[in-house]
């Protein structure tokens, strides 16, 4: 697949490890050797995986908070404008602006926009949907979602010494080591 008029961008070296522990040890070792673009792949979240990759705190909670705030503001503001300012409806002589009556919808819309922003925030932060990724070129990589533990190290073709990297990964216990060339979409 990778021979179809490739326009090389990055090289991705992948290797499979026998256990989550071995994978994380390899991640730490590879990062210590100066590789920046390292990632892990596993069928379930790894304990201490984010720390080993040196990831910053997730931005999802902040996005969720803004979503909730937007929902609450829009809901209350809208109800106030429609029922109290734009077209007050008198039903049973109740107030045009009764705060307790506006609580349910305010809450619901806060939850709705918060949930939507969590979902789309997750998609945005994970760069999903992304049906194609260079690591998928490696047929053995299919175990990453079922039972395998994989590492990937990416680098620009000019600067990376993939042969040495492959030897290093094998020395760390990696199997199925391979290097893929990224195609332009």
């Amino acid at each position, binding site marked *: 697949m990778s021979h179809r008029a490739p326009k090389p961008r990055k090289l991705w070296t992948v290797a499979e490890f026998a256990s989550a522990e071995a994978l994380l040890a390899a991640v730490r070792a590879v990062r210590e050797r100066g590789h920046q673009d390292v990632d892990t792949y596993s069928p379930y979240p790894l304990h201490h995986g984010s720390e080993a990759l040196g990831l910053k705190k997730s931005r999802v*909670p902040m996005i969720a908070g803004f979503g909730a705030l937007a929902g609450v503001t829009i809901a209350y503001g809208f109800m106030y404008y429609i029922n109290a300012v734009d077209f007050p409806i008198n039903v049973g002589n109740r107030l045009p602006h009764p705060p307790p009556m506006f609580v349910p*919808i305010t809450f619901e819309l806060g939850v709705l926009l918060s949930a939507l922003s969590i979902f789309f925030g997750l998609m945005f932060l994970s760069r999903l949907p992304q049906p194609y990724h260079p690591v998928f070129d490696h047929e053995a990589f299919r175990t990453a979602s*079922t039972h395998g533990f994989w590492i990937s190290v990416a680098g620009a073709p000019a600067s990376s010494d993939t042969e040495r990297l492959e030897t290093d990964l094998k020395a760390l216990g990696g199997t199925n080591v391979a290097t893929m060339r990224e195609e332009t979409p």
Partner: protein
Amino acid sequence: MSPVHDPASDSDTHAAAAVAGAATAPAQVDLEGAPLIIGEHTSESLNKSLLDHVWRKAGPGWWALFLPSLAGSGLLLTCIVLLEWRGVGVWGNNQPVGWAFDIINFVWWIGIGHAGTLISAILLLFQQKWRTSINRFAEAMTLFAVLCAALYPTLHTGRPWFDYWLLPYPSTLGVGPNFKSPLVWDVFAISTYLTVSFLFWYVGLIPDLAALRDSSPTRRKRIVYGLLSLGWRGSGRHWHNYKIAYLLLAGLSTPLVVSVHTIVSFDFATGVIPGWHTTVFPPYFVAGAVFSGFAMVVTLAVPARKFLGLRHVITDRHLENMNKVILATGLIVAYGYLMEHFVAWYGGNEYEQHLFFSNRAAGPFHRVYFLMLFCNVVIPQLFWFKRARTSIAWMWIASILINVGMWCERFIIIVTSLQQDFLPSSWDAYSPTWVDWGMYIGTLGFFCTLFLLFLKFLPAVAVSEVKELNQELKH
């Protein structure tokens, strides 16, 4: 089934305590006796046993259930067409019983849906590990039950093509919805609930869809599941955001589920009809919802785990725990009944007293009333006994009776209150028509159709979470 390269990949069995829950819980020793996962498994064997039912050809059992369900969906469609053709007069609704089967079924279906959210969200927040094998399925149940529920108020408006009037849009009439009306609250509550339940379910499904993609036997299936999984790679960066996103969705769903049934109870409690405006309504409705929902999960889980070969992950302990929840919520429901009657007596309001002591207990529907008490108050008491809690036959029959009982409860609340209110001159009898029954049976068929399709094409168990739990329990 997956193109496995080398047996070394099995060795995640001896991975150290390197994994933790989506809630990042440290691995805990399970103190209770019965196991959550029976037997020794590796991620690979779990992957195979839990996804196998998707690749297997549908057996005669599946078709035997699917075809009647599909016929039920056809009945639903027929009834809806008839309803739109002739108008709501084809229902048994009359003056004064303006709400009947439509709202009964609406509340019943919504209530059933709530257990799914409770299992997936609240038990996740409490780090109850026993939720893991049943959450996916309970979430699917929620989604399909809410779809059935949403159908009723939509059609009950009489002219569903004007339902968009309930939404705030810049209308040429210059008038917006009356946001002080609980029926408008319902629109927002139900649509939010449907959306959030879907997102929660789908986010949970993504890693399992990727596992399906990577173990698909054919290229076509690989493409379909590949598209559905959005290209999920299980990357450390994905999981980093995913864990917190899933937890936050659970955190949002928890108050949401309480708010939705509270708002459903406001449909009644903000009115002046006798029997509808006790202050106990919101918690009593929420408890009733959880009660009937858990009963429905048991009703569905018992046959599903047998036919899909999932007994090793949906164990007797899961079922027993659900029966305990049924007992607890059943007691709250019984307390709700007691309080309603007490308040009617203690409040001294003659309309309330007439309703509870003459109309409900001795009126035209007293048989439904006593059936309700039998199913909802007497039957759950069986679950005080371990033998009943662990007997498949008992719990299955009990779970069905409880759902019958909860349906009767909504019938009693709605119909008896409306048919005899303040003025005896405006009282009237009520009887449902075949269209009422047809729509009810039809939604049951529609629900089963969706559920069977789900069991056929998607993993019935949260595979990724079970693998993680399996790993945790080993340490």
